[in-house]
């Protein structure tokens, strides 16, 4: 899985947070813009792009984008 591409797709779910604020180590749930709506959009993006279903718990148990990538890869 291409990490750069995932980070870009992840960043696209945000309206106000600039793309250069995202890296593999971003603690995304601490971002000011993060809320339950963005969480749903991330779930939808992962379903659409990777055909993988991540749960709300998967997201809550992830701290960084790297953690989330690991979840997606484990479910592929």
């Amino acid at each position, binding site marked *: 899985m291409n990490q750069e591409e995932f980070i870009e797709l992840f960043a696209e779910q945000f309206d106000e947070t600039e793309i250069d604020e995202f890296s593999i180590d971003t603690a995304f749930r601490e971002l000011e813009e993060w809320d339950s709506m963005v969480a749903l959009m991330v779930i939808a993006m992962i379903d659409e792009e990777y055909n993988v*279903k991540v749960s709300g718990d998967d997201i809550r148990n992830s701290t960084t984008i790297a953690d989330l990538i690991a979840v997606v890869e484990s479910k592929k």
Partner: protein
Amino acid sequence: MSKAYIKAISYYLPERVLSNEELVEQFPEWTVEKVAKKIGIANRHVAGKDEFTSDMAVKVSEKLFEEYSILPQEIDFVILCTQSPDYFLPTTACMVQDRLGIPTTAGALDFNQGCSGYVYGLAMAKGFISAGIAKNILLITSEVYSKHLHSTDKGNRTIFGDAASASIVSTDGFAAIGNFELGSDGSGFENLIVKNGAMKTPKSTSGDDMDDYLFMNGSGVFNFTIDAVPPLVESTLSKNELASVDDIDWVVFHQANSFMLNHLRKKIGIDQERFLMHMENCGNTVSSTIPIVLKEHIDSFKSGDKSLLAGFGVGYSWGGTVLTFK
């Protein structure tokens, strides 16, 4: 076996409108407008303080009788779908029968379903028609979910609106009701629930327990729809001897929110032009969303057109059918 048809549809929205602007005033720290834009809802209607499910059911039925010149005497069964009844007992439909002047020879019952409720109601009504139990059924959906919501629950107050619908299911009408695909998965019961207030867990005495109010696990319900809706569409098509969604002229899904619907639409591969929506000014009205969309687009349906209906949500519960317009 008699064929069953939808003969009439009307809907009712309570007078009071809750706009995004008002929600922004109440939750200034929250990005209401951003969320509301994504979910495609600008306004929702809220039942009055003294307006309940039976009141809305009576109002919408009177509207239907007037609009289609139907007399209460013609009704021989009342089926009412609600999850916010006036009382535990009696059945709301009995009070509605009396208030509408429907003959006492008519049967009446409530059933408890949410987002799948209209499809389930059509299934039962068709069953009654086919079995010769009734000939002119008044099918009502009526919900005052607003009374289930806590005033600080910005998410659900943004999504849900109150509404009622009334349809006549009869031996004749404008849309033949096809075959059904119905399903349930109670393993998800806790993801959309009003936990307190019935027998098992009474309402708190303090009145500030959030379990007294509606709870929705948004990601849980969203993931359920991703799993359940594509196979629901497929099975509904095959039960109606249709090979693919391309054989369908129109698709009407339960109007959960436009973000979720667009995701499902793209996943299943339905063009936007055939995918009917109507929720911007009424929100997610639970069991009334499908009849509201049908009523709003009634002039688009030409003779021979087929429309797939799919309801899914709380329970979990789901159902689909196909209407063929005369």
